[in-house]
């Protein structure tokens, strides 16, 4: 009876994950899909606590379990509610790391347990392999996510050690050798010590794997680590003969991989390219060193006049807008211009911000109407009959070098054709290159004017100026 109920709960849980994920990929049903998956998860968790039995014995320590659940729920909810919309990518990375750590801890305890039962690990090759792979993937996912979190949060800078790739591959080979050695018994050292060494190497690999990857590629890395954790969870499912862990884990592992590839496609880069990391990691000069060229500055008043007397303005938001928390002010500018009969649209590059869809989420938060946000393919033909393009803290996604300079590291990445417009106004804090570390020729073009300053500050002044003119 009980085991039947448990199976039923797991079945419902698994189906809710599949349907939830399916609904999440459609704008109209996304929120409901998330809710379905959450309900299925709750059911599976409660069923496990009360109905799970092994050899006729149910689970004990309910007080501890509920204690952990309550602490985790309170902290998780508070963190998720309080986080700024701009910090969303690092939050996802952080939560992902927690899942990875959870999988790793399970493996540690189960490994100890396995040794404790007196079994020789070589006599249980499947079980040992499952536990150890869960340990490796969970740990890599944990440390990797923490580094990704630190990078997006600005605590950690891109660093490339000498021979980084060689070291990384060496570590990976070492992990494999240790796995095979431990399972086959070829390495006869103390199993517990070996496990801790494996844990340490995996942790180190996770750190060194993410360390050299540039900020522009961080979304891809988070998505990849996300699917890693999925796989780690699936190994846990295999370990406990637990169908819901297996379905949930594999589903995320495979869906996460697809998502990772989709993101790579949006940037016109291959996954290997991202991992080997030639993008932001090695700050190469990037062929066109147009630096030292002349650029011209524009004042707030001139910008306001220019925009007021335009028919059509396109705003290109980038990470600078997110950092400055300027999405609300940006919406205000759009409203003022709209009241004065200027058509305003937003051009959203697939990788604007730090994650695909990041800018959409941010602007949606500021109540910007959905139909004003246009994808790159939709908006590119419109630049030719646009009077003013306002680039707000975006850089690499409008860099013409991606089209014209085969030596540039971003060559081949689809960009927004802002230079087709009559005027381009670029708001930036300084002339510093963007995240990919490449000089942007757009800034030195005759039709481009630079409006220096913090995005929010500049937009506030711009709105005030336009209001006073109207």
């Amino acid at each position: 009876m009980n085991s039947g109920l448990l199976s039923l709960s797991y079945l419902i849980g698994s189906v809710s994950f599949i349907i939830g994920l399916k609904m999440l990929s459609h704008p109209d049903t996304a929120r409901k899909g998330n809710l379905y998956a959450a309900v299925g998860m709750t059911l599976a968790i409660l069923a496990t606590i009360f109905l799970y039995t092994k050899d006729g014995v149910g689970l004990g320590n309910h007080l501890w379990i509920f204690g952990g659940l309550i602490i985790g729920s309170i902290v998780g909810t508070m963190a998720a509610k309080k986080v700024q919309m701009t910090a969303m990518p690092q939050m996802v990375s952080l939560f992902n790391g927690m899942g990875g750590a959870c999988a790793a801890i399970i493996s540690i305890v189960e490994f100890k347990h396995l040794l404790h039962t007196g079994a020789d690990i070589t006599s249980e090759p499947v079980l040992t392999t499952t536990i150890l792979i869960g340990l490796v993937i969970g740990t890599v996912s944990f440390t990797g996510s923490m580094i990704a979190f630190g990078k997006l949060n600005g605590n950690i800078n891109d660093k490339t050690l000498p021979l980084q790739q060689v070291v990384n591959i060496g570590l990976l080979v070492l992990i494999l050798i240790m796995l095979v050695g431990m399972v086959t018994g070829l390495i006869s050292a103390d199993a517990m010590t070996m496990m801790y060494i494996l844990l340490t190497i995996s942790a180190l690999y996770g750190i060194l794997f993410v360390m050299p990857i540039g900020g522009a590629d961080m979304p891809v890395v988070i998505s990849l680590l996300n699917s890693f954790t999925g796989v780690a969870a699936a190994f846990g499912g295999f370990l406990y003969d637990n169908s819901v862990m297996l379905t949930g884990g594999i589903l995320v592992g495979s869906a996460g991989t697809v998502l990772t590839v989709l993101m790579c496609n949006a940037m016109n880069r291959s996954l290997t390219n991202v991992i080997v990391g030639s993008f932001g990691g090695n700050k190469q000069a990037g062929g066109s060193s147009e630096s030292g060229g002349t650029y011209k500055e524009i004042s707030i008043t001139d910008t306001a006049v220019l925009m007021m007397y335009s028919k059509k303005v396109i705003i290109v938001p980038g990470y600078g807008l997110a950092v400055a928390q300027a999405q609300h002010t940006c919406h205000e500018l759009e409203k003022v211009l709209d009241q004065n009969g200027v058509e305003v649209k937003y051009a959203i590059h697939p990788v604007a911000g730090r994650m695909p869809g990041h800018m959409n989420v941010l602007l949606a938060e500021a109540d910007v109407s959905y139909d004003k946000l246009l994808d790159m393919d939709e908006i590119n033909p419109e630049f030719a009959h646009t009077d003013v393009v306002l680039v707000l803290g975006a850089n690499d996604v409008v860099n013409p070098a991606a089209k014209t300079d085969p030596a540039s590291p971003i060559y081949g990445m689809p960009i927004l054709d802002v230079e087709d417009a009559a005027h381009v106004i670029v708001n930036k804090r300084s002339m510093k290159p963007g995240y990919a570390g490449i000089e942007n020729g757009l800034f030195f073009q005759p039709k481009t004017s630079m409006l220096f300053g913090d995005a929010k500050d500049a937009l506030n002044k711009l709105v005030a100026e336009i209001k006073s003119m109207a």
Partner: protein
Amino acid sequence: MEQVLNLLTEHFYFIFLLILMIILGFEVISRVPAVLHTPLMSGANAIHGVVIIGAIIVMGQAESDNYLALILGFIAVILGTLNVVGGFVVTDRMLEMFKKRKKN
């Protein structure tokens, strides 16, 4: 070869499920508008929090004098819950905004 086939027979149910889920995961995600990439990643992130069930099992099976298992299990439960609850709440917050713009 025989060993491999034996392994397949022994774990047939899981291997079966594994392959079906891989295909399903590909199919479910393959056509997604870029707008939803971030919420989708976040939602998937919450779903792999299902690893919490493993943590609960570890915790629930720990003998009351096995402090190491108890403490590690307890930490694992907290971390797993953070992944699940935080993941779903963050996803909901992102999607809530998409709903708002629909009313406009």
